[in-house]
């Protein structure tokens, strides 16, 4: 699989279908959706996962997802919004389980989307399939760090 954005990192595409709702810069419109300018979430591979999540400081949340998952699609614009809101305190990453099945197996991912939070490389909590609402996603991503 080709990831061209840099070694081990891939800026995935802009969130779609949510531009106006999120107040993002609308770049283009198709018949189906509006597209937004920014993606604040980096997609990791095995190498960058070890470097940025297991070796990274501070609170980290990882979404295990796949592009073919309708639930991940529904949650994507909300996750983008949440990631922007908390970016000063916490980093949100994503792992595509179709590309990184070994990571998915290692973390016993039973489905998508699954949010796993880490602190100092240690898993703290996980939430499977939160409601596609800001409150639920915020809780999944920041819950263990705020309680």
């Amino acid at each position: 699989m080709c990831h061209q954005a840099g070694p081990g990192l891939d800026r995935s595409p802009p969130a779609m279908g949510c531009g106006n709702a999120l107040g993002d810069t609308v770049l283009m419109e198709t018949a189906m959706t509006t597209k937004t300018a920014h993606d604040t979430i980096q997609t990791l591979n095995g190498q960058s996962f070890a470097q940025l999540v297991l070796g990274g400081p501070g609170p980290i949340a990882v979404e295990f997802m796949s592009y073919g998952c309708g639930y991940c699609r529904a949650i994507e614009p909300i996750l983008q919004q949440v990631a922007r809101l908390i970016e000063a305190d916490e980093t949100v990453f994503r792992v595509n389980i179709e590309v990184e099945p070994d990571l998915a197996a290692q973390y016993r991912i039973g489905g998508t989307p699954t949010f796993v939070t880490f602190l100092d490389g240690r898993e703290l909590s996980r939430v499977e399939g939160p409601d596609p609402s800001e409150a639920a996603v915020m809780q999944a991503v920041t819950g263990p760090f705020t309680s």
Partner: protein
Amino acid sequence: MSAPQPQRSTVPILLYDGGCATCRRIAGWVERSAARGPGAPGIVQRPVGNDPAALRQLNPGLDIWDAYAVSHVIMPDGSMKLGGEAVAEVLRCLPRTRRLASLLDLSLFGVRPFQVTLNLAYAVLDDVRPLFGCESCGRPKPWVRPFERLTGWVKAWAGTAPRVQAAPHFRHLAGRDTLRR
């Protein structure tokens, strides 16, 4: 840094979900049907895959989430046809369905009734896919949910009900045919 130039194909490209068994069957049928005509196939197909940058090479406005959600055909000039229009384009490109597809271009008072019907049929089928056990479709639209309950009761009565799903917004990996495409 200049933006990468879009890749161009001389024939339309049908994008399909390579992780979906039904989609692979349809793509296989399109491939076989396209090969039956004289000369080179009038349409090619490729799985959506997992590389957003590769898709944007086909069309800078092509979003990978959209590509999984709706049928896309990328035209040789780089434009995209979606949903029912994409289905119509596939039919136009296949030797056996070309004449049938010409009906879709019939216009009455500025309206293409057959194409409108196809678009409507596509939209309805797209909405009801979760009823047929589509693992990747996500939560059904609100109007479909009562039917979901109904089919759940029928499956339970027939003894073929799937396991109870604790989280309604969660796609279980169990039962999928493949993890790595």
